[in-house]
């Protein structure tokens, strides 16, 4: 708990604490997390694929030492998969048992009225918490110590589901019609990520802090690669980051983001590379670029792109 408090005392402390768990955060990222904790508001993270949106939530969960409840969104996701579901099988068994026992329980009731009276006296368990199967959202609310709730790719869901989220995100509670309202004991820290497949509704955006994670600059990317792939040599790392940075200035269909840079660094380590060679780069380009057209565009320029940063440094 003390580690947790220290990390949330200031933005600087947050940056340091995140670095400890392997996430190199920019000032803006750390500020958003810090505010999310202080204001108890969900954080909506947007950015290109692979800039570390999901990773941020994972790292914060590790940092705060809280369980992570993750919900992957997709089209057609509905409340029975996101909030709760009744345990139908057990409910069926329960009614069977009830039927068997009913005769015995009501045997000595003489009139219909007396039988009904007796029936009311028997506790109604059919819709009770015992038969409730919690899905991610409810599970996150019921964690006794609090939790980090990651709602991944929220833009993939449809509008109706978005409306469902509003109650969870603003009041940290879920209404189950048969039981009542289930409130969080400790409000979870919620992260929502979006790839901008569609525009999210204003109501949802208003309830969230907004964080846009851009592609990192060279200095930040160097630190990220160093943290993620510690075994890489300094010179290679700098050269590699400079190469990726210059790739991003080209008109590509999908510019490489951080996760691709890190993957590439790992690839080069596996291949025992110490310096970027045009031939090697060309062979491993498919780690960085995910479209044939992009690879065709970059392949002939590889030599030029590698030498450029060296000239700049000299």
């Amino acid at each position, binding site marked *: 708990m003390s580690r947790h408090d220290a990390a949330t005392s200031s933005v600087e402390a947050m940056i340091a604490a995140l670095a400890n768990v392997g996430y190199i955060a920019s000032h803006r990222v750390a500020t958003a997390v810090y505010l999310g904790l202080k*204001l108890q508001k969900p954080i909506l993270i947007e950015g290109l694929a692979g800039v570390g949106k999901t990773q941020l939530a994972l790292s914060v969960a590790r940092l705060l030492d809280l369980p992570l409840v993750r919900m992957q969104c997709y*089209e057609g996701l509905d409340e029975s998969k996101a909030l709760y579901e009744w345990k139908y099988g057990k409910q069926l068994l329960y009614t069977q048992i009830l039927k068997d026992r009913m005769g015995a329980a009501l045997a000595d009731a003489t009139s219909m009225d007396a039988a009904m009276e007796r029936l009311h006296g028997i506790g109604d368990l059919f819709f009770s918490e015992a038969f409730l199967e919690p899905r991610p959202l409810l599970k996150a609310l019921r964690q006794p110590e609090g939790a980090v709730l990651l709602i991944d790719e929220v833009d993939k869901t*449809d509008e109706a589901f978005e409306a469902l989220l509003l109650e969870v995100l603003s009041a940290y509670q879920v209404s189950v019609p048969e039981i009542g309202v289930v409130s969080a004991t400790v409000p979870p820290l919620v992260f929502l990520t979006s790839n901008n497949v*569609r525009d999210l509704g*204003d109501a949802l955006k208003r309830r969230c802090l907004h964080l846009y994670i851009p592609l990192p600059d060279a200095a930040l990317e160097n630190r990220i690669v160093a943290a993620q792939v510690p075994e890489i040599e300094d010179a290679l790392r700098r050269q590699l980051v400079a190469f990726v940075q210059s790739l991003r200035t080209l008109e590509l269909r999908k510019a490489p983001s951080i996760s691709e840079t890190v993957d590439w660094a790992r690839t080069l380590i596996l291949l025992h590379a110490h310096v970027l060679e045009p031939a090697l780069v060309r062979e491993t380009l498919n780690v960085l670029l995910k479209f044939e057209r992009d690879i065709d565009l970059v392949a002939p320029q590889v030599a030029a792109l590698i030498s450029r940063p060296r000239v700049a440094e000299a």
Partner: protein
Amino acid sequence: MLQPLSDFLRALRAAELRVTPSEAMDAHRTAAIVGYADRALLRDALCAALAKSAEDVARFEQCFDLFFSRDLPQEDAPGRGAVVQQGATLVEMMLAGDADAIAVEMEAAARRVRVQQIDNRFQRALLVSRLLGEMGLPAIDRLLAERDGNGRRAESGDGLAEARDRLIKQARHFVERQEELYAARTARQLREERLGSTRFATISPRDFDAMAQLVRRIAKRLASQHSRRRLRSRRGMLDVGRTLRRSMGYGGIPFDTVWKRRAVTRPKIVAICDVSRSVSAAAQFLLLFLYSLNEAVDQLDAYAFSDKLADVGDLLEGRGVEESIGAILERIGFGSTDYGRAFEDFVSNHLHRVDRRTTVIILGDGRTNGVDPRLDLLREIQSRARAVIWLNPEQERSWSSGDSEMQSYRRFCRVAVSCATLRQLEQVVDEVLRSYH
């Protein structure tokens, strides 16, 4: 500190960020948590609370930097209590060259005469003079005039006259910045309103950028309005098969009911544009509009013609619409418009792109230069397509004059409208998208 933050929120609204009361409260709570001492921190924190998209972030940063480029008045700044007497103290400040105190006084005076309410640049001069009046410039002028009268101006040499000029300049600058902060939106709104109702043909090239931006914004709005609903459940229609399958686990008792759903079809659009000189401006904005609809449209084909017709989708796909107009003209040549030939080309080469989900949008003035209009071909297109829509940049009353075949063509169109301004274009596209719901 409440006041500066509220002013800032107002400036943000002027910069077209949506700041609702609940967001304003968030902003105040945020500021209370992070404090005002560290400006970079305040900026990041407020940005997280207020800017809700990547574009918002850019606008927020610009606005923040502009707003806080001056120093905030400090409540306990020296001289604040004394300025109430005005005149004399202002002179002292000016003589002492106390820039901070003058700035503080200017802020306070500006609030009293409501400089922040500025909403267009024609109020500038008036507000400058009001601001200076409130600060006590008349008294200084009297003082200077007195000295002049006594013939002592030359020898006094205390620099009051120069300080007065500096003060006026400072006030002017101050008012300009307030205008930039608070009146930017009204200026932009006025311009966009004007552009929205200007005829395409008369829009001057220097307005093209603003126009393109506006087109994109409108298109985006329409797209998000129309792309939200993909699936509509048909209430009350039980999907028996899927219900049974899903309730296998419960011994066939249908606990889980599945309702029939219907996928909402997304529009397919085929645009056929006359790009001869008389119509090319309209064609450019129509294409830009259609290509900005992105996610709201399933399939979009663009063809351009003057005498012969060519598929220009690949040109438009690769580059922006603005840059490709030249290339398009090059590809199809500068011949005189021939609708008959164009329809012939389209029907023999591209008709397979039209099916009953496709809306065909034809943009042209319908002036065939006397050659065969080939109504039979338009009929063929119409019979395959969901609808044919004809946009004509000319006014409707000139449709039956001269070599215009519009009256014949319009018989095959579900809609034939005059479309010469962005506003009209927006209406037409909105209707097309709506018809698919």
